[in-house]
């Protein structure tokens, strides 16, 4: 079992991430994203279960046009993210089955926080039309006003809530 290699320098990694984003602009005419993949698959799932329900939701209906929810660009990109993350961890000896958590939190509690935090992020991402990848990174680099607003609000929301969930991480 390879011992895990140290992480890359954050500034170098960030620069590489910026170059990936730039490549996306040039190759695909759009930036990165993540939450949109969740939205599209949710729309697809609802449509599969009940086309009427999906069409009735003004949010899901957007994903039903064009090529349909399963040919959404972001779904394919996220599949790549999963593969890329896996390959990097494999190469660096960082593949590990674990439930990562703060030193004073049990596994069960950690999973509850993960689910709850994820759900709240889901609501926020729906309202804002994106997340850190699509808005903060992509919109930030393109100087979109709403994206910068989202970024500042997200950091603010996190810092305000951090003391309340301190026991989860410290």
């Amino acid at each position, binding site marked *: 079992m390879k011992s895990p290699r140290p992480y890359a320098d954050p500034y170098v990694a*960030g620069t590489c991430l910026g170059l990936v*984003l730039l490549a996306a602009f040039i190759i695909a005419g759009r930036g990165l994203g993540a939450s949109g993949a969740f939205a599209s698959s949710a729309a697809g799932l609802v449509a599969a279960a009940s086309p009427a329900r999906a069409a009735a939701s003004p949010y899901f209906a957007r994903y039903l046009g064009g090529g349909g929810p399963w040919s959404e660009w972001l779904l394919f990109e996220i599949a*790549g*993210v999963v593969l890329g993350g*896996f390959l990097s961890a494999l190469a660096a000896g960082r593949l590990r089955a674990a439930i990562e958590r703060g030193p004073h939190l049990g596994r069960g509690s950690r999973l509850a926080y993960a*689910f709850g935090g994820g759900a709240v992020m889901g609501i926020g991402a729906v309202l804002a039309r994106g997340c850190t990848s699509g808005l903060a990174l992509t919109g930030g680099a393109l100087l979109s006003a709403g994206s910068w607003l989202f970024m500042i609000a997200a950091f603010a929301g996190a810092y305000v809530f951090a003391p309340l*969930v301190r026991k989860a991480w410290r």
Partner: protein
Amino acid sequence: MNPLLAAVAIGIAFGWTLERAGLGSAPKLAGQFYFTDLTVFKVMFSAIVTAMLGVFWLSRLGVLDLSRVYVPETFLLPQLAGGLLFGAGFVIAGLCPGTSCVAAATGRGDGAMVMFGMFSGVLATGLAFAPLNHFYESTARGSLILPDLLHVNYGVVVCAIVAMALIAFQFAERLEKRT
């Protein structure tokens, strides 16, 4: 290139880079909000500065046609509210949508649970969306960008953001050494 194939390729590079930076690990990400590990800030803003400078200069040199790049649109109230909620969820979960996929891909069960939570949140919001639609569509400003909002040249905003980032990085290094 086939656009969906390009999406996968871009995604692979994205996921690889996130994992290399250590952003597939929730405790590391959470450290940002307790000032112990500011990797999130350093990676995010290095990326923004790099891509922003790249966009500016490639456009200026005529290599990139900015009119063919989609600029995320501005919706003031939904993005303010959504941002606050997103941030709260982020510090609770310790991972964001993209990094949760990287965490799950590397074997972290908490990453998979964040993905499941995100999916559930999006699903529930989408199903209960009708009363939210009015708010969702409110305060639209189109493809509003900072230079137009502030009535200054594009290059001025670019320079200001680079300057603020470099100064902030200095602060971040000092802050980390202290805690």
